[in-house]
């Protein structure tokens, strides 16, 4: 059956099976068979590298935002030297508009655990850390229970499924800091410190947790792995958009009738997603704009959305990014100035403060936008804002500064008239 047509698509990441979060139910559905195959079927999987190759061929593009091929990332791990090696699973999920990984914690935690253990086998990893944002306390507890059950069933710990492969899994709770979703900040946090992103290089594959080789993957990315092993790389890469294939969790929020997380193939047309999947616009209002994949991805006006699909290529052509595929929908009554000010407030609040362009830049963006929002801005402030974004982009330790700059740059260029309408005319325009 083709899984490419979203209208007939059957979910595989969060399928509608009652009590799938229980390990017995998960196993009855064929759960942990992929892991068993990888660990025991030596004809199919000669060595760990064969697993890396299969995952690479499937082209699972990282679901944490950057979209990097997961298998390719795995292949950057240096050869094992007998010392500890780590997998750090990113469940920080703090980008506004993003609320998808929690569905996996809640509905299908063992799929994720199975994927992480397969990844650990493929990269000869000794300990898996699962970092979950502290606000997800209810989900953290669900994950801890699932991990315990996996240990009891011999899917974690020593000699998994009676093979000679052993790995441990630890669930670490964050405590409220968006920046800890940035991969090296997350490593600092797992090490029990303030979440200051690290300067790269060295990259985590060389020096990650406690200076040892470490791979970082998003929760949804790892949850795709058992599906690839079970059904093959070809099956996976035939789903959805060619260059960004596979099942995708779309988080849809804002002014639609049925907001929520929907699992569909990648590459669903934006307008169909809004109209048919999310039940259309609330109160019969007209669509004004969307933010396609979390608050840092550039906003798109309704008139820019014809034929645009939810995958990296199509969104890039349209002038945005897929990000975390958490789409925020805004209707015609939305005050764009107010929205941008709120986004800038968020990034200013979350800047860790290590780099001057980010610490000061996010502060300026918020301050100037607040002034405009309050009706005290001048048109030249808009150019000042654009100037500040130029001084922030690409000049910092991590990408938070870019994430803060993009929305300002693109919202102002795409809704300039609305910003100007809120500003007084400058007596002396900025030259």
């Amino acid at each position: 059956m083709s899984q490419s047509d979203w209208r007939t698509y059957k979910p595989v990441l969060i399928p509608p099976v009652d009590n799938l979060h229980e390990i017995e139910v998960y196993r009855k559905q064929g759960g942990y068979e992929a892991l068993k195959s990888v660990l025991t079927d030596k004809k199919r999987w000669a060595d760990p590298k064969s697993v890396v190759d299969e995952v690479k061929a499937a082209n699972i593009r990282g679901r944490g935002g950057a979209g990097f091929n997961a298998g390719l990332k795995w292949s950057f791990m240096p050869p094992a030297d007998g010392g500890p090696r780590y997998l750090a699973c990113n469940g920080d999920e703090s980008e506004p508009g993003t609320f998808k990984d929690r569905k996996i914690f809640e509905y299908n935690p063992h799929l994720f655990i199975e994927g992480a253990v397969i990844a650990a086998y493929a990269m000869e990893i000794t300990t898996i850390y699962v970092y979950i944002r502290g606000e997800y306390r209810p989900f953290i507890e669900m994950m801890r229970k699932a991990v315990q059950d996996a240990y009891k069933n011999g899917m974690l710990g020593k000699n998994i499924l009676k093979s000679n492969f052993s790995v441990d899994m630890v669930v670490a709770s964050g405590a409220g800091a968006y920046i800890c979703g940035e991969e090296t900040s997350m490593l600092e946090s797992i090490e029990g410190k303030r979440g200051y992103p690290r300067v790269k290089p060295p990259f985590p594959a060389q020096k990650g947790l406690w200076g040892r080789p470490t791979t970082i993957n998003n929760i949804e990315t790892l949850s795709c792995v058992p599906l690839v092993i079970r059904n093959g790389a070809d099956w996976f890469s035939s789903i959805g958009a060619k260059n960004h294939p596979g099942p995708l969790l779309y988080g849809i929020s804002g002014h639609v009738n049925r907001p929520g997380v929907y699992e569909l193939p990648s590459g669903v047309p934006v307008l169909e997603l809004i109209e048919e999947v999310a039940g259309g616009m609330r109160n019969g209002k007209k669509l004004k704009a969307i933010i396609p994949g979390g608050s840092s991805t550039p906003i798109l006006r309704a008139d820019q959305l014809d034929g645009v699909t939810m995958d990296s290529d199509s969104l890039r052509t349209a002038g945005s990014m897929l990000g975390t595929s958490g789409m925020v929908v805004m209707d015609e009554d939305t005050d764009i100035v107010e929205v941008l000010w709120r986004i800038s407030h968020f990034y200013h609040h979350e800047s860790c403060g290590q780099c001057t362009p980010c610490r000061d830049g996010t502060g300026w963006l918020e301050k100037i936008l607040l002034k405009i929002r309050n009706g005290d801005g001048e048109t030249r402030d808009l150019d000042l804002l654009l100037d500040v974004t130029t001084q922030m982009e690409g000049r910092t330790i991590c990408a938070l500064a870019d994430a803060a700059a993009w929305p300002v740059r693109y919202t102002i260029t795409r809704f300039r008239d609305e910003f100007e309408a809120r500003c007084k005319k400058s007596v002396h325009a900025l030259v």
Partner: protein
Amino acid sequence: MTYEFTKEDLDRIESIKKEYPEVKATTLQVLWVAQDRFGHVDADVQRLVAATLELPEAHVHGVASFYTQYYKQKMGKHVLDVCTCLSCQLCGGYDILNHLEKKLGIKAGETTKDGMFSLQQVECLGACGYAPMLQVTNGEFVNHLTEEKVDHLLDKLRNGEDPEHEMMEMPLRKQKENP
């Protein structure tokens, strides 16, 4: 004030230590144990954590102050974290916050005189599709808020009842099974 961990807390801390190659790494997790026990991690509690883990107080303080979820002072019995970030803003998060400010007679960042409620305005909590929403004392999420739902929640909390876990129905159940 002097604080002490119970035997149960110390056991929990011992098992956390086994999960990490060095003690320092347990800092965040042990601060959680402390906050679960004492309701906050003020300077005295931070000192207890440092002493228990044999780590410098400056380190523990540095960590506690970096993360927003640790309460650095005593809070109300229930802490209401109202999200006003992007999706919640679009769906009326500020109205919910205003309603709570009026109902409780305090501003965001304050605690009611009877010590029952603290009110905070927070950034995205990862429940954007269920906006507007709030979280109760770093625990349960209360989704799809209306003024009535907020009033009902306040009554429940005053009566000593806990908010129950709202399992969010998967929308896909509706589009289940194509024959």
